[in-house]
Structures are given as C-alpha cells and as structure tokens.
C-alpha cells in the first residue's frame, strides 16, 4: 500500500517531484514576501523613532502611519 502511494506504477518520481517543486515554490515565495514586509515595517519604526516632536505630530495625523504603528503593537502583543 505504502509502496503503491510512493511508486505510483513507476510515475511516483514525476508526480512527487512536481508536487514538491510546487510546495517549495509556495514556501519560498511566502517567506521572502514575509521577510520583505517585516524589513519595511522595522525600517518604518526606526525612522519614526528618529523624528522630532513636530514631525511625529504631523506623521501621526496621517491615518496610514497610525495603522502601521498599531499593526506593530498588535503583532508584539
């Protein structure tokens, strides 16, 4: 039974390699995209920390900046 699942009448090597390639591609793209996201968000938090009071007030008046910072906080919780 196990042999039949893996060997598939001699086609197992082709079937399993096609599915493995797909899963590896998915995993790689997911982790690369996730890393890029975390890198950009880290950069954003660092830049925000370097702003003076007036610049922070201006930056916080923009909704999207607030949402990004909220996202950082909620992911830490």
């Amino acid at each position, binding site marked *: 039974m196990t042999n039949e699942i893996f060997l598939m009448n001699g086609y197992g090597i082709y079937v399993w390699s*096609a*599915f493995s*390639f797909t899963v590896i591609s998915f995993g790689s793209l997911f982790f690369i995209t996730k890393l890029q996201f975390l890198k950009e968000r880290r950069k*954003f938090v660092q*830049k*925000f920390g370097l702003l003076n009071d007036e*610049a922070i007030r201006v*930056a916080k008046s923009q909704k*999207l900046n607030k*949402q990004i910072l909220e996202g950082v906080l909620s992911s830490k919780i």
Partner: protein
Amino acid sequence: MLNSLEPNKIFAITSRAPKYVLFLFVIVFSIGLTEALFLSPEDYKQSHSVRIMYVHVPSAWISLGIFSIIAFLSILSFIFKNKNFPLISKSLAPSGFIFNIIALVTGAIWGKPTWGTWWAWDARITSMLILALFYSMYLLSWKIFKNDEKAVKISSIIAILGVINVPIIKFSVDWWSTLHQSSSVKILSTTTIHTSMLIPLAIMTAAFTLFSILIFLMKYNTELIKIKNKGLDRL
C-alpha cells in the same frame, strides 16, 4: 468610486486579512492535496502521471489570469491616472510569475513520461515561456527604474504589450498542431473531463487562488509601508 480606493482604507482591510486567508488556504490546500494525490482516480492512458495536472493546470490558469488583470489595471492607470492601480499590479506580479514558473517546470516533468521529452518548442510551451519573459521584464522594470513615474509607465507598457500573448497561449492548441491536447475544461460548452478529476482540479484551483491572494495582500502592505517610509524621509 475611485475615492473608496484610498490606501488607508484599503490598508485597514489588507493588514488584517492575510491571517484569515492563510488559514483558509492551508485547509483548502490540504483537502486539494489529499484529493489530487490519493483519492482521485488514475487515468486509463496516462496512469498516475495525470496527477501532475492538479498543479500544472491551475498554475497556468492563474498566471494567465493575473497577467490579464495586471494589463487591465495598467490600461486603467493610463486612463484615470490612479496611483493605486500600479501598486495593485506590482503586488500581483510576484505570485503570477511564480505560478508561471510552476506551470513550466511541472509541464516539463509531466512531458517526460507522457511525450518522452522534458521540453519541446511547441506553440503552447513557447508562448508560456514568452509570458514568463514578460513577467520578468515587468518585475525588473520596477527594480531598474527608481523614478516611480517612469517605472509605472514602462511596466504598464510591458504589461499591455505582453497581454497580446494571452489569447495566443489560450488558442495556440487550436491554431497550431501542438503536443498539447485541446481544452478539456470549457466555460461556453460541455466540459469533457470526468467529475472525479474535475473536483480535485477545482479544489486545487481554489487553493492556488487563495495563495495568490495571500501573497498579493502581504506584498501590497509592504508596498504601502515603503511609500510611507519615503514620506517619513521628507518630514
């Protein structure tokens, strides 16, 4: 209508959505893999090698679909000068490109036991390779041109030119004599594929669509934060 596409309103949704889409993808993909690898029947001619269809065909469909959307949004961005359309297109491209590569590689793997060769310069395979080149040029244009306006213009031109290839891919099996068979799944006429194979194919297509949505959402959020990073530099 276009005002409802403001980045902060979209970010409110896209920043929360990935975890739900990922959860849904894992469930649908697990069901799809079980169906495709273990439950679906083998083909009377191709035996178990037919299972490669469940990754090859959805990948090809989605890569074509994504490129068509990119081209459509590129045309819209030329007409309406909306800054959000190029951002959506740019975020869709990586998953479209990966699906294109998966279609080519799994097609080559399927070709060996079926046709006795990994590669043939037939119309369908060659036109899919050309699509991969257009995807590469599209993605490279965003990397090469640092000026955003120029990048939008060049990438849009590439997408609009590349979309000419989409109907060529679709009808290549009808227009030329190729190794590929003609379509078994049809929208306008009767589908010739058996339900026992159509169901796993539909589940895998749904799973792959969810994966492309997931990558799109993550990439779109990254692009929005990138823009905001540039904004902070100006303060």
